[in-house]
């Protein structure tokens, strides 16, 4: 499998504070990779290093085959970047901004630009500073899609946006980026789940897991056991079961290695007195919360 974006042992320290510690990443070509993690986990730092905005303390990364430290105009003309904390030239109108950027991109598609402006209902004559947050993100996205980039990097693009704007952004992104590799960092797990192909979870500066969403969804299950009388959580506990909770006659845990045949049998071995076993699928948000609560990642 070839990767459009990769990072190898990326380390970043701000003074003495480590933010990334041996971060590795592989985003398959054409994939939509969601980089998740708590606030301060290092997602934005990783993305800024990838885009050559920050220099790594150690390690390296590549995007579209180019070392990110050597990203020049030619490479950047094929990469889109949209970030929630990007400072845009507020004095420019939307139209002026697009007109200004156009000559820098040999692949700029004026017809596509017009389509995006129409789809996002961007007011060409209004200053970027006077746009709402959602409109500004749309303008940023339009200016990053109009040249049909081969890779798009989005850093928390949905933060603070209402559901309608988020939908519009995702729709616009997916409709115009068919053969494009997308790396997106986001807290909005519910949205990501609807379109991401791969997901990675960053904690303590390391990628705790990285796999396809399909495989992740397949192996995480919430298991609920019922007993005749209240049951405490036993001391001995399989390592791949997370955050056990006992409440009345019920006991719940998260199975991280779910197998339709093995998991019920293992549960019965640990809890021979269980009267009922119920296995439920989990959303990405529920998986993320379970991992965050348990403080586990790589071990699962």
């Amino acid at each position, binding site marked *: 499998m070839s990767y459009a974006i990769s990072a190898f042992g990326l380390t970043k320290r701000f003074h003495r504070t480590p933010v990334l510690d041996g971060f590795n990443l592989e985003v398959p070509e054409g994939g939509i990779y969601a980089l998740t993690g708590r606030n301060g986990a290092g997602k934005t730092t990783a993305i800024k290093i990838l885009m050559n905005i920050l220099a790594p303390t150690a390690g390296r990364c590549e995007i579209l085959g180019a070392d990110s430290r050597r990203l020049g*105009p030619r490479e950047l003309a094929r990469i889109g970047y949209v970030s929630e904390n990007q400072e845009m030239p507020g004095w420019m109108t939307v139209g002026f901004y697009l007109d200004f950027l156009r000559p820098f*991109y040999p692949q700029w598609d004026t017809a596509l630009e017009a389509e995006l402006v129409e789809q996002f209902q961007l007011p060409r004559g209004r200053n970027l500073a006077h746009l709402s947050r959602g409109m500004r993100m749309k303008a940023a996205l339009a200016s990053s899609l109009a040249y049909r980039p081969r890779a798009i990097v989005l850093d928390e693009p949905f933060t603070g946006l209402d559901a309608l704007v988020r939908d519009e952004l995702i729709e616009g992104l997916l409709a115009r980026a068919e053969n494009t590799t997308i790396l997106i960092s986001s807290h909005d797990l519910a949205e990501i789940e609807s379109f991401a192909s791969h997901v990675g979870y960053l904690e303590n500066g390391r990628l705790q897991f990285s796999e396809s969403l399909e495989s992740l969804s397949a192996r995480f299950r919430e298991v609920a056991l019922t007993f005749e009388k209240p049951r405490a959580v036993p001391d001995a506990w399989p390592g791949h079961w997370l955050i056990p909770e006992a409440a009345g006659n019920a006991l719940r845990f998260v199975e991280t290695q779910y197998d339709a045949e093995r998991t019920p049998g293992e549960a019965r071995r640990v809890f021979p007195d269980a009267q009922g076993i119920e296995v439920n699928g989990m959303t990405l948000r529920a998986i993320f919360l379970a991992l965050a609560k348990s403080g586990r990642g790589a071990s699962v």
Partner: protein
Amino acid sequence: MNLILQLFRKDAIRLWPQASIFLTLLALNGWADRKYAPFNPPQPLAFIPFLLPIACSVLLIALIHEEGPVGDCQYWLTRPFSRRHLMAAKILFALVFINLPLFLYQAAIVITAGLPMSRNWVNLLCLQLFFTAVDILPVAALAAVTKNIVQTVLAALTTGAVIVALSSLDWSHHVNKADGMPWIDATVGGAIFVAMSLPILFLQYLRRATAPARAILAGAVLLVFTSSLPYAAKWSIQMRLSPRELDPSAVRISWNREGRLVPITHDWISSDDSVQLEIPIRFDDLPPGALIKIEAIQPVAEALTGEVWRSGWLRGGIREELNGDKFENISMDRQFFQRVKDTPIHL
């Protein structure tokens, strides 16, 4: 080149108000100069020479901050133009909107004064180089290590305040700073800032290294303070550059016997340890047209008993009365003065 022109065009559209103010002030200054020279123009116009450098600096700072090199959130960091393109566009803008108008302004002065441009255009170009080095580069360097104009102004004020504070500390202890050749220190200081501006701009635009660039700026401030040349070196420079060959040893300084009989003591400005004396002095064999200025003195007094009082180097200064009598102030040890005050001494 197209990318550079595109960036230049954008800056021209964005910064036309600042550029217009600068160009208007420049034109007004030229007009006022032509109308009122050699007299000072009336009050509002008299401020233009002070406003011009401010307007020029504001334009430059705004130009740099349009795509500021400090920070990691600017839109242009991930757009397909390099910092080299950016620097080239900024240089082009400064040439077109600052250097060229200034050159034309000075050329107009030369022409209206009836001087031939054919003999002066090289001088005018050199003047532009000097102006670029002394005014544009340091301001651009300061703007390049700051994020907005408030930071730039604060950094400039802080830099100035630190230099003044350090200099004033030095003033009280060393005679070196008290000389009458401040232009040498100012020139050395200016040269240091010019020399530091280039690596700062290089680091910011080509290496994206804000911390080292700021460290260089701080280093420049310290270097300016510590770079004061020894008195002898400055004197030597001054003498070498002096248009008139003068042998200082030919000038004789002596006690003015025709002046007042005794040194005048000023106890009211003396301390417990010292007493201020005013010695009537005269200068002989001063070449015609030459002025004398005492920079520093090192008085040595020898009593009849053989006791010697020797001061370190002190700031010198001549007080001249209306009748032409001149006095040199010295600060003498009070105990020595009390012992010898009624006896002859060799000073």
